[in-house]
């Protein structure tokens, strides 16, 4: 009897398999973009106005106390850009991922087709890159008239940094979500991880204002690396050494996180 499937069937490439989910993500985006306008675009802008412009109006200190920024607005703006990248992806890879593996179980439906767990992750990350690019692109464009971007090249560098910051947070937390049975843990991720990082990792004030122990801790967080790299680009104070450290840290996190999430999702979808 002839075999049911030909012995050699051309295997679609990883890109092709990820691209097949473009319709899915497009449909999701069409449904949710309206709601995301407030959290992705308005919230960061309001923070810039409240903290940078209005509160900043009460802050008159020398640039050396603001890591070289000539105004508090110029100091806080890159911090808010990087923090926004973090919050954007964390929002996308917590409850939505839980939904895909637990509530509506869409990921199970996806992998009943030629797609595998890695393809699901790839497409999802692709969607995040799109979200990061649009959100931080718009954010940086809005900041430009405030005069907080010192050079076009710096703006591009800051923009690319956001993709990296986003992926560095996305992959490990996606991995966490993929294997999680109970979503209550997310409350802890936000309350003990994301919010403290948002507030203490150098976005709002120089980490040097913290006590030495807390300062060291802050310098170990991924957000600090993201904030500092973004700030170097927007202030035009790029230094090769520290920049490479930031880059290496964020790349390692994104890469290791990726390996972990593929493994965790494969296991979750396999039982």
């Amino acid at each position, binding site marked *: 009897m002839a075999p049911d499937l030909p012995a050699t069937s051309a295997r679609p490439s990883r890109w092709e398999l990820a691209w097949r989910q473009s319709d899915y993500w497009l449909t999701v985006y069409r449904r949710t973009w309206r709601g995301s306008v407030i959290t992705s675009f308005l919230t960061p802008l309001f923070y810039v106005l409240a903290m940078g412009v209005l509160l900043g109006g009460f802050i008159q200190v020398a640039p050396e106390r603001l890591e070289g920024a000539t105004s508090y607005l110029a100091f806080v703006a890159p911090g808010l850009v990087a923090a926004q990248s973090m919050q954007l992806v964390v929002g996308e890879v917590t409850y939505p991922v839980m939904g895909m593996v637990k509530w509506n179980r869409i990921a199970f439906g996806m992998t*009943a087709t030629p797609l595998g767990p890695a393809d699901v992750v790839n497409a999802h990350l692709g969607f995040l890159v799109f979200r990061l690019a649009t959100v931080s692109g718009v954010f940086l464009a809005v900041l430009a008239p405030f005069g907080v971007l010192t050079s076009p090249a710096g703006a591009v560098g800051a923009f690319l940094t956001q993709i990296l910051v986003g992926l560095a947070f996305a992959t490990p937390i996606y991995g966490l979500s993929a294997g999680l049975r109970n979503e209550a843990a997310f409350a802890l991720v936000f309350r003990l991880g994301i919010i403290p990082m948002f507030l203490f990792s150098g976005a709002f004030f120089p980490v040097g204002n913290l006590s030495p122990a807390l300062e060291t801790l802050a310098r170990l967080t991924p957000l600090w690396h993201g904030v500092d790299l973004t700030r170097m680009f927007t202030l035009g104070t790029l230094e090769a050494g520290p920049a490479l450290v930031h880059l290496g840290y964020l790349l390692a996190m994104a890469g290791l996180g990726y390996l972990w999430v593929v493994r965790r999702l494969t296991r979750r979808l396999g039982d």
Partner: protein
Amino acid sequence: MISAVGLRKAFGDFEAVRGIDVEVRRGEAFGFLGPNGAGKSSTMRMIAAVSPVTSGSLRILGRDPAEDGPAIRARLGVCPQEDTLDTELTVRDNLVVYGRYFGIPRSEVARRADELLEFVQLAERGKAKVESLSGGMKRRLTIARSLINRPDLLLLDEPTTGLDPQARHVLWDRLFRLKQQGVTLVLTTHYMDEAEQLCDRLVVMDKGLIVAEGSPLELIRGHSTREVAELRFGVGEHEALAAKVEDLGERVEVLPDRLLVYSDDGEEVIARVHERGLSPVAVLVRRSTLEDVFLRLTGRTLVD
């Protein structure tokens, strides 16, 4: 189409499937019958090439799922036990988006989606949200979705569980038509009537093992009598009365609410019961079903 030898699946210490041999041929409708927890769904998920085999060999469409998962899944239609529909998309978008996962061009997938909505009688609900569908409609949509890639092999895990009788008949009718079109069907069920209606051949599973195999008729002939007399007595009397009717049939089963006397002539049994001065509250003579086969093989009922 499917060939399994010594197939096992373990989750930690728990062995859901404990070594089964299965052979499914092209064009047939094959069933896994058994109660909840018999290992049917685990078996189905291994066949669907999404759950790794713990040990034993499994070939689907002549290929090893561990190596050729994507190629196998490209030819499968899967209708899981729990609906995995996207509840936030419209009915039609569920089909279109799913079809795209197979790499089917957009225009083609749109055409098929309309065809399939027609086929499962949901054409006028295309723009509705999935949330607004009834249980039966969701099930039909899941089946339509599983057909979007024109599969050679359709896997249905408990296709009609939780549906009302009318919805079940609509669904069975659709599955019949697919079978006539030459689609190989593999389904699990814990409803014996469903197995009898749809399956050419089936295996009875219990506690992770296959306890019998054959066509529904073969199984009934081999493991039960032609007819069954059901006797209902007062509450609590069944256990005691079983001994008094034991010799009237080949076998007697005591259920909480009735006695089952297995015999080729049920009317005869009833007559003899009355001759002995016993007066059941209710009597019924019926043909043997797979339920009886299961009771015989495992000592338990299918649906409890």
